[in-house]
C-alpha cells in the first residue's frame, strides 16, 4: 500500500483554503459597483488629449509612461543580470541539423517579420501593437536565427555586447524623450499636455512623441529579450 504523503496532503489543504479565500475576495470585490473613474476619463478624452487612437498605447506612453520607464528598467536589469550570471562559454547547444527547406523558409520569413515589427512599432498609437509587441517580434527573430542557423551564426553578427549597446541606446533615447517634456516647460515624460504636436488623431504622425517612444522601447525590449535568450541558450 502506498504511504500517504503528508506533505502533499498538507499542501493540498493549504492551497485549497487559499484558493477559497481568493475566490471569496474576488467575488466580494466584483460585487461592488466599481466607478471606473480613471478608465472612463481615458476613454472619453484620451483621443483628444493625447492624439493616439490606441488608448492602451496612450496609457503606456503618456498617462502612465513612468510605469513603462520602470518596466524598461526591469527588463534591462534582467538582461544584465542574466548576462552577468551566465558568462561567455562556447555554445554547444542545439546540435539539430535542419534541412535546407527549413533554412530557406526561415530566411524567407525573416524580412516579413522585420516589416511586421516595424509596422507594429510605428502604428503603435493607431492600431493594436506598439513598442512591446514589435520588440517581442524582433527578439523572436533572433530566436529563430539561433534555432535555425545556430548560435555561432548569431553571435558572429550580434553578440551580447552589441545588443546591450543597442539596448542602452534605446533606454537613453526613451529617457531623453522624457526630458523633452521638461524642456517644453512641463514635467518629466510630459508629452501632449505641453503641446508637443498631438497631430490629428488617426494620422501616422500624431500623438506627439509617442511613436518615438515606441521605437525606443521596441529597441530596448527586442534587444533585451534577445540578450536574455542568448545568455540562457549559451549552455556549455
Amino acid at each position, binding site marked *: 500500500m502506498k504511504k500517504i504523503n503528508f506533505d502533499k496532503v*498538507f*499542501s493540498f489543504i*493549504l*492551497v485549497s*483554503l*487559499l484558493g477559497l*479565500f481568493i475566490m471569496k475576495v474576488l467575488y466580494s470585490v466584483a460585487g461592488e459597483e466599481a466607478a471606473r473613474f480613471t478608465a472612463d476619463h481615458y476613454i472619453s478624452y484620451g483621443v483628444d488629449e493625447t492624439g493616439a487612437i490606441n488608448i492602451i498605447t496612450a496609457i503606456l506612453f503618456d498617462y502612465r509612461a513612468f510605469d513603462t520607464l520602470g518596466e524598461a528598467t526591469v527588463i534591462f536589469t534582467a538582461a544584465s543580470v542574466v548576462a552577468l550570471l551566465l558568462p561567455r562559454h562556447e555554445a554547444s547547444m542545439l546540435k539539430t541539423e535542419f534541412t535546407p527547406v527549413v533554412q530557406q523558409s526561415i530566411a524567407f520569413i525573416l524580412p516579413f517579420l522585420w516589416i511586421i515589427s516595424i509596422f507594429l512599432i510605428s502604428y503603435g498609437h493607431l492600431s493594436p501593437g506598439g513598442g512591446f509587441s514589435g520588440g517581442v517580434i524582433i527578439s523572436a527573430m533572433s530566436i529563430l536565427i539561433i534555432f535555425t542557423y545556430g548560435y555561432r551564426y548569431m553571435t558572429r553578427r550580434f553578440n551580447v555586447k552589441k545588443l546591450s549597446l543597442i539596448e542602452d541606446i534605446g533606454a537613453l533615447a526613451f529617457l531623453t524623450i522624457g526630458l523633452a517634456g521638461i524642456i517644453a516647460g512641463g514635467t518629466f515624460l510630459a508629452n501632449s499636455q505641453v503641446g508637443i504636436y498631438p497631430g490629428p488623431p488617426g494620422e501616422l504622425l500624431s500623438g506627439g512623441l509617442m511613436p518615438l517612444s515606441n521605437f525606443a522601447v521596441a529597441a530596448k525590449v527586442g534587444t533585451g529579450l534577445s540578450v536574455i535568450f542568448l545568455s540562457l541558450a549559451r549552455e556549455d
Partner: protein
Amino acid sequence: MLNPGFPLLLAALLGLILKARKIRYFLTAGALIISLILMFALPQDKILTTASFFDLELILNYISLTSRNIGLIFGLFALLVLVYGYSLLSLASLNLLNIFVGSSIAILFVGDYISFFFFWELISVAAFFLIYDKVEEKLRYTAEYYIIIHVLGGLSLLFGILLNYNFTGEIILAPPEAGLLFFIFGIAIKLGFLGFHVWIPKTYAAIPFQLAVLMAAYTSKVGVYALYRIVELETNIVAYFGLLNALGGILLAIFHSHLRIIISYSIISQIGYMIVGIGLSSQIAVTGGLFHLINHILYKGLLFMMAGTICYSTGFENLSDLGNLWKKTPLTFLAGIIATLSIAGFPFFNGYLSKALIKAGIDSQLLYYGLQLAGVGTSLLFIKVLYFAFLSKNNDPDIVKIPPLSMKLGMVLISAFMMLTAWNPAAVERLFQISPDVAYFSSSSILSGVLPFITALLLFPLLKKYISPHPEKVFQRDFFSKLGYSFINLDKKISQIHSGDLIRYLSWSLLALLVLLLIFLLAG
C-alpha cells in the same frame, strides 16, 4: 561646573593618547585630586550643570550632602588603591579605572534618571573591560557573567524609569511613583541582594587581587546609594530584608575557605547592615547606614589588600593552603587584625561608630538582636580567617615574592585613616551635619560593641572543626547560569528548524498568510 566625576572621564579620554604608564598613573591621580577639590569647592544643593535629551532636562551636577560624603570616600579610596597598586596596575587597567571610578563618582552627583542610568551602565561596561582578559578563559567567563547580570539589572531599572516617567512625566531623581518593583530589582542586582548576589563572590574571587581591591569598593556601594535615593517605603520592610541579607551573607561565607570568596560574601552581609540603616525611617539610622558604607569601603578595602598581599607573597589564597604567616608577614597580620576588629564593630575601631549609629536608630528588638547575631557571625568569620591564615600550624607556605613597598604603604595608609576616623566621632557628625544624641563611648554601647566579638572568640574553638578550611572550586553553576543554559537549548531547536529547505520556507510564508486570513475570518 564640572561634575566631580568628569575629570576622571576626561582623563580616560586623554589616556587614549598618552601611552606612557607613569604619565597615565599621575594623570589619574591628578584627576582624582581635582575631583576631590571639586566636591569640596562646589556649592551644595544647587543645580550646577544641565543638558538636554530630547525635550527632557538632565541635571548633570547637583551636589548634596550625602553624595558629597560618599564621593569623598570614593575618591579617597581610589587614591589609596593607586598607592597600593602602584606596581600592579597595568596600562590598560589604569584607563579603565578612570572610567570605572569616574562614572561611580559621577553617578552620585547627577539629579535625573537618564544620566543616572547612563552612568549606571557605564560602570558595568567599564567593569566588564576591567575584568576582561584576552588570554584567561576564566576571566572572560567572569566578565561575561558580570556584564550580563548587571545589564539585566540596568534594563530593569530602565523599564522602571520609563514606567515612572510615563506616570509622572518627570525624570528627576526622586522616589518613583510607579514601577518600584523594577527599580528594586535593578538595585538588588547591583548591591548584591541575597538571591542576586552570585556575581559578587564569582567576580571578586576570580579577578586579579588589585582589581578586586578596587572594584569591591564601588559597584555594590553605588547600589546602596541608589537604594538610599530611590527606594522610599512607608514600612520598615526593607530593613528586615537587610537583616536577612546580613545573616544570609554570613551563613554563605562561613563554610567557604577561599580568602576572597569569604570576603566577598561578607560584603553581602555588610551591605545588609547598610540596608537595615537606610530602610529604617529614623534619620540616625539612615546616617548610620551611609556612614557604614563609608567605613565599609575602608575596612573591606583593607581586607582585600590583606588578601591580595597574602596571595602576592605566597601564591595561595585558600585557607587550607595557608598558615603560620604571622611571623613572616607581620605587617599584613597587623592589617588583618585591624580590619577584623573594624568589621566586627569592636569599640575604638572603624566599624564601631556606624554600627552604633545604626543600632541607635533601631526601634525593633528583632532587628537589634538580629544585627548582634550577624556581628557574632562576622567576628567568627574573620577570626577564622586570622586563625587559619596566620596562626594555625597546619601549613607553612613559603614567601615566594616580597611585596613591594607600595603595597605595604597602601595598607598602612588605609589603616591609619581608619583609626583616625574611629577615634573622632565629632568629625563624623560634622561630615554628616547631624548632632545625634548618641553616646558613642558609653559603657552600654561599648558593651554592645564588644559582646559579639567576645562571643565569637569563645565560640570559635567549639565550631573550629565544622568550619575548618577545605579546597574548593571557584565556579559553581547557579540559578542564573542554569536559566541561561536552558535558553540556549531552546535556541538550538530554533536554529534546527531552519533546515535550508526552500519548500519548507515557502510553506511557512503561505501558512502565515493562511493563519492571518483565518484569524480575520474567525475573529471578524
